[in-house]
């Protein structure tokens, strides 16, 4: 038996099949346009439209062939399975861990809540705080009392009347130590909130009741006359919510629009127990949509809320799916199974090169800033000159172009563009190789070889590997510093970065806006004891400046004080500000009425889903 003869044949076959399979993959990625004669196409359009019209009348799902005209009479045939209904199909990628308003903290969780509920205030398209469930609000003279007046006639989707007690319950639930939510901290300005929130379970009952009573007094639902609502007060009369704050907080009206204040219903939470949020039976809200059904990891379907005060949504339904693999999500989008998918860096060039899809890419400013954090108490970053040198060695433009593939915007400051407090034209500590080298030589170390070893720690993932390799490469090229790359398992990394003692020398971290106010960017992060304390950042002068700004009631003066504070922050280069994220999505041409804001980290237009519509005629084309 000649065994040798079969070998080259075998290898040839295998190689050919692999090439074939991969080529097929490539073809699938850019479907080969089908060439047809013009006449044929025309007849097909006519036939198909008839079918579709019929189908619309009978409201049946049909297989539909859409013919898109392209250059050179080459037609691309897309088949879709749209219904006559206007359903917006969105790939949200990750299924939430919880959809409880007072326990959620992630974008994908909040995306669900934003459809089901509405807070006292909301953000308009320019990120201004505007009335929502509350028709108006007012601060007292000293800025320590905030009174909301609810709209009359507000109802939940099931018809139950919505009154101030519902909001008081939600706010108290957020503070309650029994809830222990991720965002419990955010309402700490409420008088008595930090004390109750931090109370140990072993606290004596009376003491606990006392702590709770203080908060109850601070979050008071009242009738028009100023009398606190009792159990017997009619819901229609209980429309005033008075918040007593421990310090003036002009930004607090904005906070009252966040998901933590969404009025989840006490009786339904009791009925549904701890996992009440998992069921459409108990998720009954006051928002623009109603959760129709929730199938974990498969889909969530929302239909318009007929009781919503701003009117009925134009869409017939919104449907979330949770395909985590972005390559698959992209294929499904091209196969017309999604109307909106996130656009990832890997696919950006392919999309831009495709004549059809080019216009479907929506890339616009996001709400996060990322920086290379330097540990202020770990050598060599104790020396400002070293921090400046490391910052000036980084070419932000190159980073955005080569590493982020264009999905990002270089920055040298903290508050991102589009947010109140953004400083245009910051140039300090930008890329300057010569100045970087000079700064390093002026540091107390004097030269590169005297620098203590530098380790760049990161949460290990394929994407981060390339990112950090790039950073280390730049520092080597520009400064001649050899930085050790130190990948760490993701949760271990989180645990490390949480504690100032174990926080790495250098690592990348970002901050995304909770609400559009400079206080959220500056005071929450950089105040001593804030998030910046993880890298041991503490600046008494800056603290003073931010304290003054936080309590300032005059809008213009306040903005000015924050601008000065941000100036002080950037001055010493505590960290190397690197880039702002962008929101990037693919949106089908038949989706209309999307109002984009930088807050769209879940899907475009999520700020106001009422205006989103689907043009069925375009879908047929």
């Amino acid at each position, binding site marked *: *038996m000649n065994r040798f003869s*079969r070998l080259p044949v*075998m290898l040839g*076959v*295998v190689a050919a*099949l692999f090439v074939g399979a991969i080529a*097929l*993959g490539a*073809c*699938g990625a850019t479907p080969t346009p089908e060439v047809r004669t013009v006449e044929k196409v025309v007849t097909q359009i006519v036939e198909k439209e008839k079918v579709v019209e019929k189908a619309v009348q009978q409201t049946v799902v049909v297989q539909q062939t859409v013919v898109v005209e392209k250059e050179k009479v080459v037609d691309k045939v897309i088949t879709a*399975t749209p219904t006559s209904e206007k359903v917006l*199909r969105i*790939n949200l990628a990750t299924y939430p*861990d*919880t959809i409880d308003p007072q326990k959620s*903290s*992630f974008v994908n969780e909040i995306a669900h809540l934003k459809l089901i509920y509405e807070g006292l205030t909301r953000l308009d398209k320019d990120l201004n705080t505007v009335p929502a469930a509350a028709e108006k609000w007012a601060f007292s003279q000293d800025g320590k009392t905030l009174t909301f007046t609810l709209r009359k006639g507000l109802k939940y989707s099931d018809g139950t009347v919505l009154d101030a007690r519902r909001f008081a319950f939600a706010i108290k639930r957020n503070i309650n*130590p029994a809830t*222990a*939510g*991720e965002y*419990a*901290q955010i309402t700490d300005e409420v008088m008595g909130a930090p004390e109750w*929130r*931090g109370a*140990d379970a*072993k606290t004596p009952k009376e003491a606990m009741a006392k702590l709770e009573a203080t908060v109850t007094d601070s979050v008071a639902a009242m009738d028009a006359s100023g009398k606190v609502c009792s159990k017997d007060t009619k819901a229609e009369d209980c429309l005033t919510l008075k918040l007593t704050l421990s310090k003036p907080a002009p930004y607090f009206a904005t906070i009252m629009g966040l998901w933590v204040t969404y009025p989840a219903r006490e009786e339904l939470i009791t009925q549904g127990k*701890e*996992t009440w949020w*998992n*069921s*459409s*039976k108990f998720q009954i809200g006051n928002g623009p949509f109603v959760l129709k059904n*929730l*199938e*974990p*990891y*498969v*889909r969530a379907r929302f239909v318009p809320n007929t009781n919503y005060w701003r009117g009925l949504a134009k869409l017939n339904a919104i449907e979330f*799916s*949770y*395909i*985590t*693999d972005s*390559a*698959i999500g992209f*294929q*499904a989008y091209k*196969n017309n*199974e*999604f109307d909106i998918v996130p656009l990832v860096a890997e696919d950006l060039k392919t999309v831009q090169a495709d004549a059809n899809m080019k216009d479907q890419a929506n890339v616009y400013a996001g709400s996060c800033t990322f920086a290379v954090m330097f540990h202020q108490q770990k050598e060599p970053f104790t020396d400002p000159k070293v921090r400046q040198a490391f910052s000036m060695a980084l070419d932000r433009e190159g980073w955005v172009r080569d590493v982020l593939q264009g999905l990002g915007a270089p920055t040298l400051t903290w508050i991102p563009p589009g947010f109140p407090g953004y400083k245009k034209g910051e140039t300090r500590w930008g890329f300057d190789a010569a100045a970087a080298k000079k700064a390093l030589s002026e540091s107390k170390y004097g030269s590169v070889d005297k620098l203590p070893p530098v380790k760049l720690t990161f949460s290990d993932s394929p994407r981060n590997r390339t990112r950090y390799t790039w950073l280390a490469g730049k520092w080597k090229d520009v400064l001649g510093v050899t930085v050790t790359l130190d990948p760490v398992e993701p*949760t271990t990394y*989180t*645990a*490390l*970065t949480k504690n100032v003692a174990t926080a790495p020398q250098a690592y990348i*971290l*970002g901050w*995304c806006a*909770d609400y559009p106010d400079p206080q959220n960017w500056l005071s929450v992060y950089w105040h001593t004891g804030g998030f910046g304390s993880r890298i041991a950042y503490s600046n008494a002068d800056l603290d003073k400046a931010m304290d003054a700004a936080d309590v300032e009631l005059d809008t213009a003066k306040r903005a000015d004080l924050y601008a000065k504070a941000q100036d002080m922050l950037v001055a010493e280069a505590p960290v190397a500000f690197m880039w702002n994220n962008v929101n990037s999505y693919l949106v089908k041409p038949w989706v209309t009425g999307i109002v984009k804001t930088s807050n769209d980290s879940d899907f475009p237009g999520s700020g106001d889903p009422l205006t989103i519509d689907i043009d069925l005629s375009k879908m047929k084309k």
Partner: protein
Amino acid sequence: MTKYIVRRLLWMIPVILVVTLITFTLMHMAPGGPWDRDPGARQVDARTQQLLNTRFGLDKPLFFNFSDGNPLDSQFFGYLWGLVHLDLGPSYRIRGADVQDLLFKAPEDKPWWESKFGYSLRLGLYALVFSIIIGIPLGIVAALKQNTVVDYLSLFVATFGVSVPSFVIALFFIIIFAVGLHMVDIVIRDWSSFKPWIIPAAILGFPTMAFLTRLTRSSMLDIMTQDYIRTARSKGLHERRVVMLHMLKNSLIPVITILGPALAGLVTGSFIIEQIFGFPGIGREFVLSIQRRDYSMIMGTTLLYAVLVAFANLAVDILYGFVDPRIKVE
């Protein structure tokens, strides 16, 4: 036989105990805890974290409590106590939910096969059936027609099955059947019919199928040259009878050996398949629980797998006796 089975079942208790002990020790050795989420997001603040630890008993000593009166008032013995009462503890990732509910209870009062485990069990069984009905016949034919086109084809399929990771195979399948031929949808919004299960099951079963093919072929080749096969043939037995009765039966030992653990592996789901198809199985719990230090879920999934493996291997050992009566499992 009954005595043997009873003894084996009793042996499962120490096996489970050891697995519990090892897993418990390992997971608490891993740095970080259930409240350490994505570093980019806002973290549970230190005070709240303490409160949560107290509430879930995570501030108790791991094994022995020397400070209080009761030395067994510890996390480990607390878990064991729950385990005896079939209580797998609270999940930390999905707060408020119990592990046994997350795994075995379907949402909204649906029957248990609509639970996460139910989904994974069904997909795993389909995958197993797929790998058996394609793998074993292909292996037999490849052995009988050694060095022919069929043999090469089986080698190619097997090579493809093991050298190309399943996430790539999944993409090929999707591009061919969904994008190219429009036979199925990529995004499956409804799993109630059989059709959407076919591709995920095939992808899940592909590597097992490849392995089965080669194993069957190799086993058959071993048996084919044995004297008793020649004897059987010379006795004038019908060829099909020779193949089915003598050759196949005798070559089944390695096939059965791998089918046991393969079954346990397939029905406990696949992280990758679930990420790709948005499949509501338990595979992601195996990975996410560990990544997120969801302690009770780590224990729950590990013990589920341990029990399945133990039962599968027991079944394998019993089957040995049927295939080859000379094997005495005692």
